[in-house]
């Protein structure tokens, strides 16, 4: 693979990818996709949220799962960071705590692929201050 170094290289790369990427145009209809939000506040970042986010982006692509991975602020579960919120199409969001790469793998394989619940879910009625 040639290296991308300038904007001109990027344009070239883009042309090569375009046909593939167009099929995956996501912004039109985000509800039909798996949505993942990684909590990225001080607490999350300090406990490894960046690694989890990179892992999620790479693995979902490798496993051909159409998903949008974005960031969110602190959800108030600092004790359980890194936390991620997963929303499957037409379902309520579920928040998972203590997510490392191993857990993230389990979430992809069991929850995202088969809709099977896995350990580590933070109940929605958990009380945070002043919520």
């Amino acid at each position, binding site marked *: 693979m040639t290296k*991308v170094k300038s904007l001109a290289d990027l344009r070239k790369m883009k042309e090569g990818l375009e046909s593939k990427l167009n099929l995956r145009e996501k912004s039109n209809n985000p509800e039909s996709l798996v949505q993942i939000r990684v909590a*990225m506040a001080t607490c999350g970042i300090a406990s490894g949220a960046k690694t989890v986010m990179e892992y999620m982006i790479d693995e979902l692509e490798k496993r051909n799962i159409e998903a949008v991975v974005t960031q969110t602020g602190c959800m*108030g579960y600092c004790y359980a960071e890194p936390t991620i919120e997963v929303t499957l199409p037409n379902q309520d969001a579920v928040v998972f705590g203590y997510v490392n790469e191993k857990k993230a793998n389990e979430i992809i394989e069991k929850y995202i692929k088969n809709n099977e619940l896995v350990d580590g879910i933070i109940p929605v009625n958990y009380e945070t201050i002043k*919520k």
Partner: protein
Amino acid sequence: MKELSLHIMDIIQNSIVAEASCIEIELIESKSENIYSISIKDNGKGMSVEMLANVTDPYCTTRTTRKVGLGIPLLKQNAERAGGSLTITSELGKGTLLKAIFQHDNLDRPMMGDIAGVIILTAAANENIHFVYTHKTESGEYVFDTKEIKEALDGISMNQSQVIRYLKEMIIENLIEIHYSN
């Protein structure tokens, strides 16, 4: 935080919460002056004088989900431990400028870490915000501007793993060329 890049990721979140539409990150390395400086400037809603005075207090936060705000105090602690300082200037309605300075050769200066990854992950997750990342060393300067990237990508979303990979590689290649230090 173990790496300065993670501090940067954290501080950028403050700018995002302050509803900034443009965030400028500038890193300046100077071995001759023994300086490693990080500036983060945004055009968000800014802070009042009272808020600004309390912002380095760990018990000061705008969040309602928890009672502590450690992002800025932790960065301040790291900067001061590495013979440097942290200053913030802010004006309501105009934006905020945060500057953290470290001694370049200080053993207590954390490593920069994966700055390319931090910039691209943050930019991809917040595509509506204009990011300008400037890195200056004694050998040169590299500017990564998401406006230019968006034009080059011409409608393709940045938030996809292949694009993220290419952009990260692009940043790293350019940083190597200006002999950045970690």
